[in-house]
């Protein structure tokens, strides 16, 4: 089962430039929450702060309180431990090029010392099934490299890889923006299924996608969270004028 995310006054900087201002938000467990906004509004930065990926950039830092389930992300646990509980899928599919499909999915476990072969097999099969990729690769997953798949398949591989470590939350940073419409459709279908087991936060610049897959949506602008509500409300009757301007295409 997934867990909820409570964010309280989160701020983030790139060197001296501030990118996020006092973000406070409660993400519901086992739902998909979309994060929308124009380019440069901080949506990717926000999501990357949730699993402390933001600080891998030199001179970047974040401050504030983030609780994911019962874990305090910024106080007490190391970033490495956090990232094992939170999965991430990136904008451009990035399978490990030197590994087979099987090894890619197992990577999160094997690289952290997991050795039990039989259990690995089970987990890999399960993860590939979650990602709707198993049937397509079950015969070749030990032989073909991760990079030999098509774009859409690679992204599903990355999703399987993220799911293999059994995170409670899955963060997706514009996962479909590099994909064709058919692959995008498949992945959106996937998100529907995954919601039952995981909490999903998906960054998207495609408003139609947000309304298709997410129950809740947060609108970001210039590093601030302008509005956060049920998706239906955001897109039909937003409370803030800026949200309305963005939805109707007056900017962005």
């Amino acid at each position, binding site marked *: 089962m997934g867990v909820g995310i409570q964010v309280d006054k989160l701020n983030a900087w790139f060197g001296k430039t501030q990118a996020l201002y006092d973000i406070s938000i409660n993400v519901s467990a086992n739902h998909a929450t979309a994060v929308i906004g124009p380019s440069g509004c901080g949506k990717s930065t926000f999501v990357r702060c949730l699993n402390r990926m933001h600080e891998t950039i030199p001179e970047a830092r974040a401050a504030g309180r983030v609780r994911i389930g019962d874990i305090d992300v910024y106080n007490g646990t190391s970033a490495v431990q956090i990232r094992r509980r939170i999965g991430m899928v990136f904008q451009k599919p990035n399978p490990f090029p030197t590994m087979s499909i099987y090894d890619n999915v197992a990577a999160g476990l094997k690289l952290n010392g997991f050795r039990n072969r039989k259990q690995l097999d089970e987990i890999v099969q*399960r993860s590939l099934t979650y990602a709707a990729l198993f049937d397509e690769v079950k015969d070749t997953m030990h032989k073909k490299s991760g990079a030999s798949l098509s774009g859409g398949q690679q992204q599903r591989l990355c999703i399987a890889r993220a799911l293999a470590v059994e995170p409670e939350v899955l963060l997706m940073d514009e996962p479909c923006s590099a994909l064709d419409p058919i692959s995008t459709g498949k992945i959106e279908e996937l998100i529907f299924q995954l919601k039952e087991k995981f909490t999903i936060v998906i960054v998207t610049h495609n408003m139609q996608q947000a309304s298709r897959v997410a129950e809740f949506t947060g609108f970001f602008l210039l590093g601030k969270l302008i509005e956060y509500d049920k998706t239906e409300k955001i897109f039909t009757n937003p409370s803030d004028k800026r949200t309305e301007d963005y939805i109707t295409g007056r900017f962005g």
Partner: protein
Amino acid sequence: MNSEVIAGAQANAAPLIKSGDGAVADRTFFVAVWACGACVLALVGLIVYELITKSRLSWQAFGLGFFFRSEWDPVNDQFGALPFVYGTLVSSLVALIIAVPLAVGVAVFITEMSPRWLRGPLAFTTELLAAIPSVIYGLWAIFVLVPLLRQDVQPALGKYFGWTGLFTGPPYGIGMLAAGVILAIMVIPIISSITREVMTAVPQQQREAVLALGATRWEMIRTGVLRNARIGIVGGIILGLGRALGETMAVTMVIGNRPEISHSLFAPGYTMASVIANEFSEATGDLYLSSLVEVGLALFIVTIIVNMLAQVLVWSVTRGMPARSRG
């Protein structure tokens, strides 16, 4: 979708991965690779330290005049490095005079004139010259180049150009000219490859602009490419000089190894690198050894300065930095 399989997964159980977060291992790893990097610094420091301490004796005995004296007499403990300095400079100069036109010519041909299919093979074969070890150049020079010089080239040079004073004396074959020629062959690949690199770095628009004015191909090369790449080419030449100054084996095998200064290129000579190569393991006496190390120190300093100068010049044209991966 198979929801039965999905349902089989565990719900919010303890995390699968039980290993630690690797903080200690991270620190250890960092220290290990940092130490490797620091090793590079340590090595250069070590080289400077060794050269300075082991040459102290002769520095105290002869001072700066060491490099202006010609006497090299181990028996009487009299050491002067002028013949070696002279030999190093002259052999390198001869090498450059021969090598530069050839290397630039090859580079121009490969970059601008050669048909596309020929470019790769030609570039490859020029690089192949760089892979041949010095001792093999020397071997070939002793048994093929030197007889050629002795029997054909030197008599001809003496006959027609002896009046310059450069080509006088008996044509031994072995001597400064032989050293200059073999050095030239050895530095051509470096000069040529840098020249090619800086010529390729000149943007295509420059070439097209000149051609659009109605220039011939050579005029285009001269004004559109060479003029822009000129600084880098000079850098390449200086890099070749640096290589020539430090070259040891091939030169030792054909220069004659006599600490003499002569105006003729036919005469045998001695270079800084050669005297060390020949006499170091047999040097008896501390002053002898120290003098040889001092020659080494001077060679080290000169090559460092020359190489640094060359790097700066080449970098300024190509902005040569390895490809970045960020973002």
